[in-house]
């Protein structure tokens, strides 16, 4: 058994098509998931039980079950019902890409909601009292004081969450998607050279994760620019 470097050089360009799919999954799920998370956290911190309870149940269910099971439930499971197959949504639900997007987004929604809640709770009470003393209304306080500080506090955890979403996109390969892992598994089936193929794929993921971390570090710098002198 020898390590075939030529095969690595040969297979990395083939994975380029997979990188496109992986990035599409990552970006779309982050956008939709973050929007979901904002709605969820607003419901979660509400004092009205009818709003906070559904948010808690949603977070509990999606954080308590493996994402792979959720993906199978959406992609394979929903086809069990004739009503779903007849409905308008079937166009999206029979497409593995959209099923993956749905599964990733609801997960990002649940996890990011908790991260944002941590950020909101971390806002210094003195700041809010000062804002009240200056005559800011409740909604003004939330928009101009709580939100920017909470975003800054939540950013590091949000960066970790995005890297963990990147890792989760590999699960799309189990429902016939040709993302980086999907392409790697196809090449692997043809060549049976697991080390070369899978390690090249791993290096591609390492690079993407590295870019995400740089992006988050830049965002953190921007949000805390008032503290640098």
């Amino acid at each position, binding site marked *: 058994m020898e390590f075939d470097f030529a095969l690595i050089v040969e297979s990395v360009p083939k994975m380029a098509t997979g990188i496109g799919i992986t990035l599409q999954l990552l970006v779309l799920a982050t956008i939709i998931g973050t929007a979901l998370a904002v709605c969820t956290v607003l419901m979660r911190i509400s004092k009205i039980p009818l709003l906070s309870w559904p948010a808690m149940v949603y977070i509990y269910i999606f954080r308590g079950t493996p994402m792979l099971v959720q993906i199978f439930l959406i992609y394979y*499971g929903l086809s069990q019902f004739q009503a779903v197959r007849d409905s308008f949504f079937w166009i999206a639900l029979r497409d593995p890409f959209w099923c993956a997007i749905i599964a990733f987004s609801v997960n990002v929604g649940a996890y990011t909601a908790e991260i944002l809640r941590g950020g909101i709770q971390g806002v210094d009470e003195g700041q809010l009292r000062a804002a009240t003393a200056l005559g800011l209304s409740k909604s003004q306080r939330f928009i101009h004081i709580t939100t920017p500080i909470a975003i800054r506090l939540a950013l590091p955890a949000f960066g970790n969450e995005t890297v963990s979403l990147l890792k989760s996109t590999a699960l799309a390969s189990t429902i016939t998607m040709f993302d980086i892992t999907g392409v790697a598994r196809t090449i692997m089936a043809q060549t049976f050279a*697991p080390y070369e193929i899978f390690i090249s794929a791993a290096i591609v993921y390492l690079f993407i994760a590295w870019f995400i971390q740089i992006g988050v570090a830049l965002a953190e710098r921007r949000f805390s620019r008032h503290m640098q002198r």
Partner: protein
Amino acid sequence: MYVVVGWLDEFLWGALVVLQIFMVGMTMAVIWGLLGAAAKLSKIPVFSVLASVYTTVFRAVPELLVLLIFYFGSAITLTAIAKLINPDIQFVDIPPFWAGSFAISLIIGAYAAETFRGAFQGVDPGQIKAARSLGMSATHTFFYVRLPQMWRLALPGFGNHMLSMMKDTALISVIGVEEILYTAEIATSITMQPFTMYMVVAIIYLVFTTVIMAIIQVLEKTANRHLESV
């Protein structure tokens, strides 16, 4: 729903396999985590650099990919070695259960190493100095002063790692271990009711994660009992 009843015993066996993977994987992950933390805090550069590479790589590469590398990689290596001894052998692999548990334990171990490192650093240096001045040896100080206090600080992070480990066990069906997700696939191919079967899997996992969350709460309460006012 009554179709599930006929598959209950299969699901029960599958659930036992999940628990086994969890136990084996968690034990190994604690070992990797402690070794990783020790290496990260080590003053010998080779160790700390190696530990950084380990935690960086295993926290950035998808779990599924790590699993595939270990399972197929170990199989091809073992087959090559076996062929040297006996050229008639076609295929040898590590049982997927062990390859899978090992791969997942390395991932969780990388996260645990970071948690343990932070916790070790969080232990008050005064405590260590006090122990040393009482004449305790470095080994005694480690086991009776640093390790117990480190656990308390590491618990919240460690609890999350236990939950991740539980959820990562679902991936092992991909390399053919007969756990609950695998059972659901077989059951689906016969009953044609994928939603029902995968729902059973989801509920079993939700029960497991709920139990783990309860255990973490009890552990945290026990670890912090000296902080409660009497």
